């Protein structure tokens, strides 16, 4: 671990300003140290030679001035350090969040860190990263990790800790460690120069002992580390024992082992103590060497100058000056040593952030090993399967120049300019066939309330109006998907056609690939091979063959955000935000008015229990929606889907973990949601068969359609 990470220096301008301030104040402090030593030796020796207070008054006053000056510098340096630390933490935090959520594609602040990298490659590498995902990569978004443990995203917790408490350790680094590091360089050198001018023999003693300190500390530290690493596992196990036992207390109680454990806790803690102490005996040696060398050197200098003074080879003032300065040469070194470990926590956190920021990029560019393992044709598809493409890549792929990469990805207009050829033709075709839209909806008389909601929200949206309100045909054409690091594909040459307005039940045991299929449709994942295609209703030709002439266009060519605007998703365990009930329902439509929210909740069978909450729709839900039961959360998620009023709805085990009462309510709501929409329901059993138009069995990644209900 480097004491000063160059990447940290480049983080923010604040850090560079701070470093300048620190060096300047370090120089000032060094000056004050030398001045104080000289003044003290001057006054004391003067007084010894009989000079009176009047004669020495200027020097005594100067000592006070030095004290005030030193205090002022100390204050200013600390305040400046904390200010810079706040800025640097903020910078790292924002960059981390933007990076892991995929919202940094705009390249808002990449110049500091990536001056050496052309914007274009930045875009392309970023583009391969799944949007809104983190280390769990596609697996996180696709929910594969979540199905077993209930803790879907272990990485998320780690990142939250890193971005808050982890980075806070940088305060110490900036305010305590770095200034001492600067002093540890400046002061010994300055002292050495001054002492050498006054008494070269003392200078030799100091010059010899000073470098010994870092050398010995490094040797001891190196030895300790090897030793600690050997014991680390043991220490870790012993250290975790108490937590394990306390957590397991109810279980111990049931088996009447609770009391016996007290003695075991004592024994294990004692064992822990013995092991730790044997490590500490070595670990403390490094501090011991530091203390011993620094004090012994001062003692040697003192004796040496004392004796030479006695023989008249030195004058009193010089001897005093050397004696006062000698400890000062070692002081900053000792301080740096004492603060090293506490400060390194902050550096480690910063390093973790940098690793996070760079790892993702590297995985896009190089990925050499994984490519080497796979045959060439799979390469392109594979890197896609890990990642979803962002608008930037989209633009690049469609031949848009570098100029466009500046465009704001949130702005549909700018995206539209670079839309691919196929897509714009598809749009035109759709516009031309406006009449066809009505036809496709005709067989399904819409419930009145749903329709009015539909119109309400529609009136607010001016862009892509027709696209958002109609469902396309969806086709999986020989889609295979293999998760990174696994051998067996989660989906194996799956083919499926979903008609607009029809609902499909994907039924199969857990792990059969049905949730993966939903993730594909949500574009959290991209196929390893094969294609997902869509075809706007009313396109020319017949939907039977997956050809471009028949109106089929690859889903790849539609920007994911744009595609998702046509989808409402009800996940297995919906995430509720620390916000009000109403705002949670508004997730997909932040501007919806209260009436629309309430109507969506009514349709989702959620209105009654929401009204019963202390503040109704304005009730804050607490972190992760802690107030609500699983069934209520599920109904909020269904309300979200109603409010979004998308033509395609995707539901993942909507009632899997609910008790019967809640499950019944959710079923009613989901049936209502499926009416006249294109729906895909994923479930492990046939309970939903009567609510859908078609049942498709999914087994070990194979799709077996044709079980019509």
């Amino acid at each position, binding site marked *: 671990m480097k004491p000063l990470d160059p990447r940290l220096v480049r983080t923010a301008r604040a850090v560079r300003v701070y470093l300048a301030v620190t060096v300047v104040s370090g120089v000032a402090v060094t000056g004050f140290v030398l001045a104080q030593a000289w003044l003290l030796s001057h006054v004391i020796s003067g007084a010894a030679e009989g000079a009176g207070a009047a004669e020495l008054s200027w020097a005594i006053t100067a000592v006070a001035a030095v004290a005030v000056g030193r205090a002022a510098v100390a204050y200013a340096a600390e305040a400046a350090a904390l200010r810079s630390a706040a800025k640097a933490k903020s910078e790292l935090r*924002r960059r981390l969040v933007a990076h892991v959520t995929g919202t940094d594609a705009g390249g808002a602040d990449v110049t500091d860190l990536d001056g050496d990298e052309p914007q274009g490659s930045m875009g392309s590498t970023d583009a391969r990263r799944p949007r809104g995902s983190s280390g769990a990569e596609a697996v996180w978004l696709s929910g594969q990790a979540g199905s077993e443990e209930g803790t879907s995203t272990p990485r998320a917790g780690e990142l939250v800790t890193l971005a*808050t408490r982890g980075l806070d350790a940088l305060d110490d680094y900036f305010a305590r460690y770095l200034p001492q590091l600067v002093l540890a360089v400046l002061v010994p050198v300055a002292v050495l120069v001054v002492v050498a001018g006054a008494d070269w023999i003392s200078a030799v003693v100091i010059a010899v002992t000073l470098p010994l300190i870092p050398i010995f500390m490094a040797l001891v530290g190196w030895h300790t580390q090897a030793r600690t690493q050997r014991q680390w596992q043991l220490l870790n196990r012993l250290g975790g024992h108490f937590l394990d036992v306390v957590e397991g207390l109810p279980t111990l109680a049931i088996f009447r082992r609770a*009391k016996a454990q007290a*003695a075991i806790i004592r024994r294990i803690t004692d064992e822990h103590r013995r092991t730790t102490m044997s490590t500490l005996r070595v670990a403390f040696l490094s501090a011991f060497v530091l203390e011993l060398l620094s004090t012994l050197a001062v003692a040697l200098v003192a004796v040496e100058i*004392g004796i030479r003074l*006695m023989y008249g080879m030195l004058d009193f003032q010089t001897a005093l000056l050397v004696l006062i300065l000698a400890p000062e040469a070692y002081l900053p070194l000792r301080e740096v040593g004492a603060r090293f470990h506490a400060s390194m926590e902050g550096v480690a956190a910063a390093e973790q952030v940098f690793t996070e920021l760079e790892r993702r990029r590297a995985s896009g560019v190089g990925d050499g090993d994984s490519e080497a393992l796979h045959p060439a044709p799979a390469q392109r598809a594979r890197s896609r399967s890990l990642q979803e493409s962002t608008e930037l890549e989209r633009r690049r792929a469609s031949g848009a120049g570098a100029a466009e990469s500046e465009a704001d990805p949130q702005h549909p207009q700018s995206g539209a300019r670079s839309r691919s050829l196929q897509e714009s033709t598809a749009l035109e075709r759709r516009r031309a066939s406006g009449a066809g839209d009505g036809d496709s909806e005709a067989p399904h008389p819409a419930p009145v309330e749903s329709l009015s909601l539909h119109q309400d929200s529609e009136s607010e949206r001016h862009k892509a109006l027709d696209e958002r309100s109609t469902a396309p045909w969806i086709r999986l054409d020989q889609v295979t998907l293999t998760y990174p690091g696994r051998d067996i594909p989660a989906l194996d040459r799956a083919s499926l056609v979903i008609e607009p307005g029809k609902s499909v039940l994907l039924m199969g045991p857990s792990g059969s690939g049905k949730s993966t299929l939903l993730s594909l449709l949500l574009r959290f994942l991209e196929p390893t091979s094969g294609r997902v295609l869509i075809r706007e209703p009313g396109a020319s030709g017949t939907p039977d063959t997956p050809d471009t002439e028949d109106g089929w266009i690859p889903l790849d060519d539609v920007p994911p955000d744009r595609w*998702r605007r046509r989808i409402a998703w009800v996940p297995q365990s919906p*995430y509720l935000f620390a916000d009000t009930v109403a705002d949670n329902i508004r997730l997909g439509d932040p501007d919806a008015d209260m009436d629309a929210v309430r109507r969506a909740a009514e349709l989702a069978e959620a209105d009654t229990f929401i009204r019963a909450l202390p503040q109704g729709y304005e009730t804050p839900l607490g972190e992760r929606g802690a107030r609500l039961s699983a069934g209520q959360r599920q109904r909020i998620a269904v309300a979200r889907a109603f409010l979004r009023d998308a033509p395609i709805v995707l539901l993942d085990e909507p009632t899997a973990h609910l008790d019967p009462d809640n499950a019944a309510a959710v079923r009613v709501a989901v049936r209502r949601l499926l009416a006249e929409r294109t729906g895909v329901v994923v479930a492990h059993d046939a309970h939903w068969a009567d609510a859908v138009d078609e049942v498709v069995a999914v087994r070990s990644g194979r799709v077996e359609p044709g079980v019509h209900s």
Partner: protein
Amino acid sequence: MTDSTARTSPATPAPPPPARGRDPLWRMIALARPRGTRFALGVLLGALAAGSGVALLSVAAWLIARAAEHPPITALSVAVVATRALGVSRGVTRYLERLVTHDAAFRTLADVRVRVYERLARTEPVRRFRSGDLVSRLVSDTDATQDLLVRGLTPPLVAVVTGGATVVFCTVLLVPGGLLLGLGLVLAGLAVPLVAAALGRGPGRRQAAARGELSTALVDTLYGAPDLVAYGAMDRAVRRVTDADAELTRIARRDAALLGFGAGATALITGLTVWGTLLLGVAAVEGESLSAISLAVLVLTALAAFEVVAPLPAVAARLGAIRAGGERLFDVLDTPPSIAPPRGAADSDGPDGSGGPGGEPAEGEAGAGADTDTALASGADTGLRVRSLRVRYAPHEPWALDGVDIDVPAGRTVAVVGPSGAGKSTLAAVLLRFRDPDAGTVELGGADITAHPADAVRAVVTGVPQDPHIFASTVRENLRLAAPGADDDRLWAALERARLADEVRAMPQGLSTEVGSHGLRLSGGMRQRLALARALLAAPRVLVLDEPTAHLDPDTRDAVVADLLAAAEGYSTLLITHDMAGLDRVDDIYVVSEGRVVQHGTHEELAAQQDGWYAAALKV
């Protein structure tokens, strides 16, 4: 599940323990009393180390000032030897001090852990353990006592001893000089750290609020990522994080001006004290009340003395956090037990004040099993009769169980189903003796179990609790928990019965396979089966299975229920569940809702009652 909203602490009118009102800091220090000698030795060594540092400069100053008078070498020899000795002694004593205090702190940690654990074991453990965060925080609070003792206790005491000695020494040389140094040391070692800590509290509070908002926004953004992306709301979420971050940064930058106070003030006091000493000393030399040698000694001693108080600001800054941790810790240690000790039972615990001098708890394993006694063990009838059972968690809360009658005939399997929050888990807690009923009886073979010590009841009634804990150990050790002496044959038999034997056999090290923390190396279904095998090994007569399928995915769920019921054959079994899987295989079913039995009958009977909860639930 939902009854966890009730808290025990405000409800149970605790008889205020004698130590209640005292500052948790003092109480935490009091925990170290049994190790007082070691700590005293640590302080002594620390004082010697710090003293050596100061004395080195004093003696060296004397040596030089005296040498300036060109005396014979013999006049300096003592000082020369002393200087060299001090040069060595400081490092050595400092090293020893650290070892001694760390050792003492670790020993105290063992005492504290045992006390916390014993207290937790006696107070109702179940409810507290609903929140994993709470438990891990408690554990880290316990471990924080060690930190307090090493970093919080020794430096102030060392500062008092060494600082005091230095002031006395200087006062002997020159009274005003000594007093000035004393004042300076008190200001720098006590006033500045305390004022700085107080100044820091304001920013701390302000920043805590902003930090909370930031953390919430981050949690929402990262955990809710799939939902946000699917609904195109990620940009908004990130904006919320950015706003929260901007606010926190703004506050932190503003507060930096306050937080620099400590560093500046310490430097100022140190410098001005040296200046004052110099001023007084020079005047005294001029007035001939002080020798020139003493002046040098006085000024250099004052210069070195401030190193003694240097660690104190860090101590003061940590006090708040340590006190808060101590408060939480003593909150646990002061909680009274939730089940009344049965009349004259051996395991009554008394009003554990701050006394209990962590003596070796020799009670050990024998005490646990020995009182498995009399009435409960003798009866051949293992039928369970619950009559008019009422439980609530606090005087004014609604009843969690409100007059429940349930029969589990010997050797039969009975299910209790109902929506979450119906009181089912409370029933399990009463049967496993984690709770006393407020009214009503639970009879086992004619004897009321609430009149027997918890462990006596658990010898006959055991089971799989909700979220059974799998310990970070081997399969064998996890099983042996229930039957300490069991040989491998018995373990395999239990695994066989729980349908886990094949899987364990397939593991690389069989029974000796490490299952990882919380058994995470096993699948959810395997963990549940391991817990069942463990319950079977305890050879109980009544099995209570509390939500055995709560965290399993639907496929495993059906298989686990089937295997559980097959394995439970022959026991009097109570299956508590909200899930309808496998209920056609039990002998009798009670539907519980809002603390009352609303339906009762066999699966067929209940399924036939078209307007009932059960039939409706089956349809879903």
